């Protein structure tokens, strides 16, 4: 165990020196202002059309209701709109603004929108070349000739990866808050957010609905994002062990993640797609009470699926890495 900490330190510093985390920060620093600007424009338009947020909300509900009365709209879509109407109505009835313009609310919605694609991509920036990068550079031989057992080397990579996943999630939230707050203001921590909507068919059961302060909601959301990002990270680690080139490793993982996003939007009739890991990444939806991509999916189910994929990829990673021959 005493040999492990220096190894982790070594791996963590290696990732740092490769400037991967810096890239992530720069991407965030460029993207967040763009989204903030877009959100600002939307807020301006709304302000010119509506006296206050209640008018905007009641108009939004009305528009959904009108869409629901149309015969041309698919049932699946109607179901999710029906649920959205009921949730918005709940907010309206309790006089709570679901989209109040402040830094915390912006951060909350940015994070939940980023969970299926953006966070996985950021994670891939670190995870994809953890092992394959060493192969490409030829440094893996150096690493493996040291008198350290192989599983310890992979384990230290895993710990370093976990550290950077945590840092990525937290840094995104912090940067998002700091940047958007400059435009929308830095408050909103104590604003109530409703959670606990239970979806039954196309209606929601509101007896478990309760309000949590927004800071707690954001914390829960970040925790769920961390779990889904970690499962992506573990899979990427496995791919990085299996595939020799970093480019191939990134492409494989990106294809998997993106196909999951596409599947979630069209797989309502393909029930068993719910066992694919990337369909389960949107854990924050359960918190918000949005309908899951496939009927019947719950938080517990998604966590189990992700845990299974994570465990399987860990098993494969470790058994392959400790046994495989290293040749160039």
């Amino acid at each position, binding site marked *: 165990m005493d040999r492990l900490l220096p190894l982790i330190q070594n791996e963590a510093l290696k990732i740092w020196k490769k400037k991967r985390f810096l890239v992530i920060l720069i991407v965030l620093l460029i993207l967040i202002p763009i989204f903030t600007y877009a959100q600002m424009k939307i807020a301006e338009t709304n302000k010119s059309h509506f006296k206050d947020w*209640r*008018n905007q909300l*009641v*108009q939004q509900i009305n528009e959904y209701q009108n869409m629901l*009365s149309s015969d041309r709209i698919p049932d699946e879509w109607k179901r999710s709109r029906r649920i959205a109407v009921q949730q918005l109505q709940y907010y309206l009835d309790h006089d709570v603004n679901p989209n109040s313009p402040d830094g915390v609310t912006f951060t909350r919605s940015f994070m939940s929108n980023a969970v299926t694609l953006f966070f996985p991509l950021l994670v891939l920036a670190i995870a994809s070349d953890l092992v394959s990068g060493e192969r490409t550079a030829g440094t893996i031989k150096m690493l493996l000739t040291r008198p350290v057992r192989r599983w310890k080397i992979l384990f230290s990579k895993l710990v370093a990866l976990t550290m950077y996943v945590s840092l990525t*999630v937290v840094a995104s939230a912090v940067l998002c808050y700091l940047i958007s707050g400059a435009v929308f203001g830095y408050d909103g921590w104590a604003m109530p957010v409703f959670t606990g909507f239970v979806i039954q068919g196309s209606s929601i059961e509101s007896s478990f609905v309760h309000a949590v302060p927004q800071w*707690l909601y954001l914390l829960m959301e970040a925790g769920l994002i*961390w779990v889904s990002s970690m499962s992506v990270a573990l899979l990427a680690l496995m791919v990085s062990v299996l595939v020799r080139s970093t480019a191939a490793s990134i492409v494989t993982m990106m294809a998997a993640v993106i196909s999951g996003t596409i599947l979630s939007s069209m797989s309502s009739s393909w029930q068993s797609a719910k066992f694919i890991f990337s369909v389960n990444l949107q854990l924050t939806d359960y918190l918000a009470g949005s309908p899951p991509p496939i009927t019947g999916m719950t938080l517990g189910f998604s966590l189990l699926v992700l845990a299974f994929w994570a465990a399987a990829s860990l098993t494969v990673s470790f058994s392959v890495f400790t046994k495989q021959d290293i040749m160039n």
Partner: protein
Amino acid sequence: MRTLSSGSLWKLIGLSAVISTLLLLAGFGYAVKDMLHPKGEAFEGTAAVPALPASGKLSEAKEISITAIGDSLTKGTGDATGEGYVKQTIALLAKKYPDADVRLNNNLAVNGLKAERLVRLLETDKGYRYALMQSNVILFTIGGNDLFQIAAGSSANKKADELDLNKLKAELPQGLNQLAKVTKLLHDINPNAHVVYVGLYNPFYDIPDFRAGSLQIQAWNEQAYALLHQYGNMSMVPTFDLFEQTIGRYLSSDHFHPNHIGYAQIASRIAQSLE
């Protein structure tokens, strides 16, 4: 960063990573606990009650805030430009009262809405009540779907054959009953606003078998007028005459809703009636 030695850089990364991870794990744990064992607790919001606008003449008002409710006619179905009579009325009022700030507060019309559902919305929907309370002009249409039993948006031609004039007659009292509730609720919610009800017309005037339906429509309009007459702030704008000889000019291709210029005629009547 280059000034940092590897040791202190590692301490910085390591410490912030450990803190972040613990924080995120706590968040995750709480989320799982919160969702797997949810505790429902009633949240008591303080209901917002906007101040009613002052009653009085529109020509003296600084702001004319309009809320429209009702069925597809208010929504503007059939108007290719999407304006309907509501937006055209606003444009006309803005011309009529150049000093006032004329704006649409909300258009909360729902396609296919029947009077009974409108009553329920007015009774229970806080958003509806809130928007109505803010405005000094309320425009509404209702009754068309009750009488014709036609879901707005679907082609009226198909169902025209199934229209039964006796049924139309039978629907009248029930629909008017609901309309009475609507007017009473509107008065309870906002007694200061100018309320304009757009009367019904017979979209099947040009079909010989259903021309007689116009008599039932007129019966509705007459009794609707009697209901609105009870309240000094409510008025009714007739439309039946617009859709008789000129039905081909003013009705849209669904043969049920007005088209853009049809709505323009309704709008000009509303603008004329308001003071």
